[in-house]
């Protein structure tokens, strides 16, 4: 084997690839050859590093220097400085905004510093297409242990003792799920993996499948042994081509090495699995719907009971685990339940991966111990608001099934129990941070649009109910809200939650209920005063310039597409209301926060029409 003195671990996750990894990689390769370093320095493409917003990112070993926002133009300089002369190249390092200095080491960057990597243990550290590199990191040792030294009961006990809970949403104890299926008697059982990550704003499963596909496969082998299954299916969204490719490659390698197939590792246990591509239906994240989809039917959920542990795929006992859950299995088996419980709380043990997105500075994937305060995640890891001038308003957790947690609850520790109390849910771990410019009614409407669109249509409350609620929210955001709408929405929400067939319908009203709970004033303002104070609902606002703040810089006037802003240079400007179309451009543009948003005003609509015609 060739020896390299340095490894460049370039992130080849979807995010970084989209930001230019392939081009940068080619440039580095070329430059290394130019400098004669190609035999000393090895480039490894890894899965998602997690710090997606800073991509393309690269980690240089052995020094552990973290480079971000790489560009082709900077490559010659980088290679010359760092790899030839050994002077880490400060220009491409992460900068701490407050202190204005570069942070060379990855683990000194706050985004990484507060994380503990279990699920993401191999992220950015191994080549996901190399089974050897996975094995080097203790890969398949847990499977070896489970297959040769442990009985199904031992495995189930270990997982139960560890307190592993499903990371897909509801947090059902994984060991218990396995136990049910293990006890079912059948000629065939199925071990299934849910890679149909659907919550908008969550991408940890994609990341794991891309960065560490073997960890999922190993988890499935162990689970298969626990329940007595010889066949597995990984159901992956077709929208994740890279994940599919990496998984397929990993499966092929496993088959070739005998880690899948008959008599794995000489243990006498046989298990094989295949990938099944989802075809784009959010509801297929629901386990019974996913099974219907694998059966080639419309992905419509089935009533439970019978539970999948008794009658699942093809009416055979089946276990469906989420990607993140499965990725935790191997280290837990290898290190034991106690190790697992070192992190987290009594009821929510271990760590959890979150996808931080929205109006936050450090967008990306983070893994923290359960029980970490929300505040730590948002401010210490996430770096606070992207726009420092804007205040934090709310964080949405749990996607369309979840809710919005307001600022006053930001100190809660993130555990299944504590999050549920707020009206949100842990969900798969999407955290969408919203600043004060976010209209909460519109946010609720966004989620309802999603659920109404993704409702399979099988049960009445979800099919019609989500549509009715969406219509009501649309009315409210467009100025047709009526007295009593809030109460009707709450009432209907409760009925839908109680009567819907599956989790989609049972949770679809959550975004409405939680926004009403914490931001009722916004609903009231929308309905009664016809006022959206964020200016997002263009029918419910008007913009005005406060003369005492305006510096007359003219930026707003230049931004206005209607030419509705007038004023002399260096003197306060004003907005011609009849022309204003409430596009919010001036508000976004003003550096002095001199634009104020007020309730909708009566205006002569012909003015805009006339103006449009002139153009």
């Amino acid at each position, binding site marked *: 084997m060739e020896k390299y003195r340095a490894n460049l671990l370039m992130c080849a996750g979807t995010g970084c690839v*989209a930001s230019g990894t392939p081009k940068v990689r080619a440039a580095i390769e070329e430059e290394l050859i130019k400098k004669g370093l190609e035999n000393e320095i090895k480039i490894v493409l890894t899965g998602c590093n997690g710090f997606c917003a800073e991509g393309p990112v690269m980690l240089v070993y052995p020094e552990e220097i973290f480079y971000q926002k790489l560009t082709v133009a900077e490559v010659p300089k980088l290679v010359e400085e760092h790899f030839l002369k050994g002077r880490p190249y400060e220009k491409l390092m992460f900068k701490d905004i407050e202190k204005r200095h570069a942070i060379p080491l990855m683990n000194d960057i706050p985004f990484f510093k507060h994380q503990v990597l279990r699920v993401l243990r191999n992220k950015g550290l191994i080549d996901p297409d190399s089974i050897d590199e996975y094995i080097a990191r203790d890969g398949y040792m847990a499977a070896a242990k489970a297959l040769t030294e442990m009985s199904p009961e031992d495995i189930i006990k270990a997982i139960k003792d560890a307190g592993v809970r499903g990371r897909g949403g509801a947090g059902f104890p994984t060991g218990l799920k396995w136990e049910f299926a293990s006890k079912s008697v059948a000629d065939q059982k199925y071990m299934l993996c849910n890679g149909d990550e*659907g919550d908008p704003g969550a*991408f940890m499963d994609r990341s794991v499948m891309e960065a560490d596909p073997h960890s999922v496969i190993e988890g499935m082998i162990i689970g298969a042994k626990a329940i007595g299954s010889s066949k597995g299916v990984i159901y992956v969204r077709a929208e*994740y081509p890279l994940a599919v490719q990496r998984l397929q490659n990993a499966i092929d390698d496993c088959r070739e090495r005998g880690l899948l197939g008959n008599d794995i590792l000489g243990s006498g246990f046989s298990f094989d699995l295949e990938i099944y*591509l989802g*075809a*784009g239906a959010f509801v297929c994240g629901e386990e019974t719907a996913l099974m219907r989809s694998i059966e080639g*039917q419309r992905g419509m959920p089935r009533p439970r009971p019978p539970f999948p542990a008794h009658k699942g795929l093809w009416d055979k006992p089946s276990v469906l685990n989420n990607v993140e859950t499965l990725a935790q299995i191997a280290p837990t088996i290898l290190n034991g339940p106690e190790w697992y419980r070192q992190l987290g709380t009594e009821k929510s043990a271990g760590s959890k991966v979150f996808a931080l*997105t929205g109006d936050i500075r450090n967008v990306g994937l983070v893994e923290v111990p359960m029980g970490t305060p929300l505040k730590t995640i948002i401010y210490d890891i996430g770096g606070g608001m992207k726009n420092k001038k804007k205040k934090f308003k709310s964080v949405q957790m749990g996607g369309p099934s979840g809710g919005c947690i307001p600022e006053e609850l930001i100190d809660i520790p993130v555990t299944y129990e504590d999050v549920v109390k707020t009206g949100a849910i842990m969900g798969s771990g999407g955290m969408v941070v919203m600043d004060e410019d976010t209209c909460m009614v519109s946010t609720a409407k966004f*989620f309802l649009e999603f659920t109404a669109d993704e409702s399979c249509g099988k049960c009445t409350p979800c099919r019609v109910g989500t549509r009715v609620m969406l219509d009501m929210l649309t009315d409210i955001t467009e100025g047709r809200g009526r007295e009593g709408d809030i109460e009707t929405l709450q009432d209907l929400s409760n009925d839908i939650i109680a009567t819907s067939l599956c989790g989609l319908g049972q949770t679809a009203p959550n975004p409405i209920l939680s926004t009403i709970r914490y931001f009722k004033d916004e609903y009231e303002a929308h309905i009664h005063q016809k006022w959206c104070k964020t200016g997002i609902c263009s029918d419910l606002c008007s913009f005005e310039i406060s003369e005492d703040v305006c510096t007359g810089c003219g930026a707003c006037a230049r931004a206005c597409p209607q030419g509705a802003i007038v004023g002399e240079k260096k003197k306060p400007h004003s907005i011609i209301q009849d022309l204003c179309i409430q596009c919010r451009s001036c508000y976004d543009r003003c550096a002095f926060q001199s634009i104020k948003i007020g309730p909708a005003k009566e205006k002569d609509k012909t003015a805009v029409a006339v103006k449009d015609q002139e153009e």
Partner: protein
Amino acid sequence: MLQEIDRVIQQYKGKPGSSIPVLQRCQEIVGYLPPEIQKIVARGLKTSAAEIHSVVSFYSFFTMKPRGDHNIRICLGTACYVKRVEEVLSKIKDNLKIDVGEVTEDKKFSIETVRCLGACGLAPVMVIDEETYGAMTPKKVPEVLAEYS
């Protein structure tokens, strides 16, 4: 093309639950799934055309309309929503003068919206063919589209 489809059907024939993979392959081959193709699949898999059509119509991945040479997929996930992907979308619609689900007159572009692409870190995101464009703004729309014309 029909031979290729026949090969796909033969490959999956008799394998339970194969309608979705077969349809996916057919869509790759033909580009979309017109009724004639669905009928061939139904016959080949010993099921009814209504059953196949109901499956096709359920999943957003399947389309019964031909796409443009370049298919633009706009992510409508939460992160993209929060980052106002709507504005990017409407700019694209304005630019191409078509609505979501339509094809431009010259058959060059079609627009689709998709649920989360899982590239939230780059929000707002759009994908043209296989290429992902992150941190989109309405301003960037014309230059990105120009790459394809």
